[in-house]
């Protein structure tokens, strides 16, 4: 074994983590608060929809995914005080009114014939935007100072991607006719337009700017 008292580099050669990050503590708390608000809205909607969908496989998936997003909300709830926000409810808010309108529109469908709309709202619009927001955050925050947020983002992303796959498989299995494809596309476009106005899960700048 090498001499244990011989000085070693604090960062091993394979550890390429960088100190700089795009977000300071305040901005991170703001984003995390929006994430928590959005995850809450999602798990509540998934739970509410369980009773309204007749398809047994969809019913069971919604129940399972409901918990995934509740757990994400809990992760963000616990992260907020670590970001100097001692009253987590203060930052548990939507980024803007457009996001509120998006959630209202997404949770509008209730009838048993509207499973396609319910799933499209969640799995073709909302969850892809979570994946975008979380991926941008993970790839741009300080890998050293903000490691706890990165850890939670990774856990959440793992669920989001798996749930996205589940949901997309369900949607594809439900689309039987060209009319249903049109229905799905129209609903997606309507919600995507609202999300565009909102600027993403954390508002404008959720995934940075292209300029």
């Amino acid at each position: 074994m090498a001499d244990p008292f011989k000085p070693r580099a604090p960062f091993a050669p394979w550890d390429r983590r960088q100190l700089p990050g795009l977000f300071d503590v305040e901005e991170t708390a703001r984003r995390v608060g929006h994430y928590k608000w959005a995850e809450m809205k999602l798990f509540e909607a998934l739970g509410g929809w369980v009773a309204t969908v007749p398809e047994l496989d969809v019913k069971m998936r919604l129940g399972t995914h409901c918990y995934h997003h509740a757990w994400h909300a809990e992760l963000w709830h616990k992260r907020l005080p670590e970001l100097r926000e001692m009253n987590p409810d203060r930052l548990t808010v939507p980024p803007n009114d457009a996001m509120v309108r998006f959630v209202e529109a997404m949770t509008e469908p209730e009838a048993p014939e509207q499973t396609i709309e319910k799933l499209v709202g969640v799995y073709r619009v909302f969850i892809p935007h979570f994946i975008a927001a979380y991926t941008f955050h993970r790839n741009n925050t300080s890998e050293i100072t903000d490691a706890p947020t990165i850890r939670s983002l990774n856990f959440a992303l793992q669920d989001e991607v798996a749930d996205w796959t589940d949901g997309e498989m369900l949607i594809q299995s439900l689309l039987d006719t060209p009319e249903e494809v049109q229905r799905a596309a129209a609903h997606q476009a309507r919600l995507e337009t609202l999300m565009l106005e909102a600027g993403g899960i954390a508002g404008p700048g959720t995934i940075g700017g292209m300029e």
Partner: protein
Amino acid sequence: MRKFFPVEELARDQRFEQITMRQAQADPRTVLNAESRNKTNRLTPDRADASDRARGLMHGIFVGEIQALEGAGRTCWDFETGTEAPFALKLDMARQAWDEARHVEISVKLSDWMGTEIGQFAENTVLFEAACSNDPVLRLAGVNRALEGLAIDVFTTMKEFGDLAGDPFLEFCEDWMLADEVTHVKMGSDWLRRITENDAERRKKALEFQQVVDKLFSFGGTRSDSKESPIGLARRFRELAGFTDTEVEDIAEMSLKALEERKAFAAAALAGDTTADPA
């Protein structure tokens, strides 16, 4: 999507047929000539109709789990976080939704193993009815303490059946589900205590509601200490779930009373009370 979803609109595919508790209990045949029949209805493998009975009960568990999933899910949606229900309570309900979804999956697999088809038996919607209260505390008392308490009794009976019959899957699965249900009952007991800590009146109301639901969930004597009841009262697991000795005794007494009342109800139906006619 509206708040508070009516039981009549629970979404099901075409394989399912739903009936109400009133319809289920109004069958006059259940009391006619009852004296001449075998006095024990307890589900044990030495019954000639054991596997068919177990299949029927398994289907009852399956639809019960669907309704429990729906009930937990609705509690996530129906109440505003903070003003109407604590954030942590809703997280627990989301966790319960996942557990119940898993139980539905297990029930489907077990039903398949036992030769039962989805929707083969009528679905009694009484369980979701208890999940419709507009007070989250009453909902917890009705669902987590009464409904999940019944689940403890049912799973214990099925676990014993699987064990005696040597069915390796049944005993294994019921044991896992039993562990979850004990957790859910404890969850309900904890929240009931915490939320009503400074509100004695609300706690009293919740416990009264639980009593009403417990009686309803005795299914007119389907669950009691009596051998006339197919499902026994799982006293030990109820203790583990946080029920006091007095509470268990109260449920035992109430269940026996429900058995007698169901007999009287069916007799009334037989005597021509048309409101009891399920047709």
